[in-house]
């Protein structure tokens, strides 16, 4: 037996240094505004402190904290709803974002696990996300980053399924076009 007790990773005074940046990165991809991302991370830690006894260690502490943060972000979307404008819901609006690829660019077939190692790729992705209307960005984020089902996203955003499909189509079309020109064509 030794007296070297393992460091208690569940000690809340260590949480911010060990998990603060990771939570911030999770949030900043989804909400864009650093101040808001910081607020959400802070709320997450405070809720986690209150619910500490509920953490049973079935998952890692990081996973548990991220689960709380995910709820905070969706709560934020729900409480601060974006009015979806008529033009947000037109699938064939003038100057629509749909454009064919005009040629085959091979970088699209790079393995995602390779792409995410590249810092410039993240720059392109976050820039392109910033170019989306807020409502489209939220829809895309919940669907493609978090893998939520359409029904749940409709409830959060307060839109019909038909509206959601249009919003997702326009978000994907615009992102495709933006990534093609800022990243995949480099």
């Amino acid at each position, binding site marked *: 037996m030794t007296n070297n007790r393992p460091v208690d990773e569940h000690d809340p005074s260590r949480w*911010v240094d060990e998990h603060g940046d990771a939570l911030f*990165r999770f949030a900043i991809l989804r909400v864009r505004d650093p101040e808001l991302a910081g607020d959400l991370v802070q709320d997450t830690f*405070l809720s986690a402190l209150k619910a500490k006894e509920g953490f049973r260690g079935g998952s890692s502490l990081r996973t548990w904290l991220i689960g709380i943060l995910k709820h905070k972000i969706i709560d934020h979307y729900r409480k601060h709803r974006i009015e979806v404008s008529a033009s947000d819901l037109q699938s064939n609006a003038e100057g629509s974002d749909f454009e064919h690829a005009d040629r085959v660019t091979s970088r699209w077939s790079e393995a995602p696990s390779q792409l995410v190692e590249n810092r410039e790729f993240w720059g392109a992705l976050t820039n392109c996300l910033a170019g989306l209307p807020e409502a489209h960005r939220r829809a895309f984020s919940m669907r493609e980053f978090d893998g939520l089902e359409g029904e749940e996203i409709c409830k959060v955003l307060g839109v019909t399924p038909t509206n959601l499909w249009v919003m997702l189509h326009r978000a994907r079309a615009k992102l495709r076009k933006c990534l093609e020109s800022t990243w995949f064509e480099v």
Partner: protein
Amino acid sequence: MIGCRESARLISEQRDRRLPWRTRVALRLHLALCKLCKVYATQMAALGRISNVAGVVAPDRCPGTLSEERKRRIKEALDR
């Protein structure tokens, strides 16, 4: 026959719901004939895969850190 615009809309929509079979057939037919829409469909699928991975690995890979000021404020709040 559906056109390219309609095809693009359906390529996205089929990621979110099961399309009626007539629509699926129409889309498949269009994709068999239109090389650029086929490329578009491939890129949409890639965008989906890339986003799924990005969403999961963001805590480790997405650039950005909490400011020192914010860390200090959170620690104070936790201590209260």
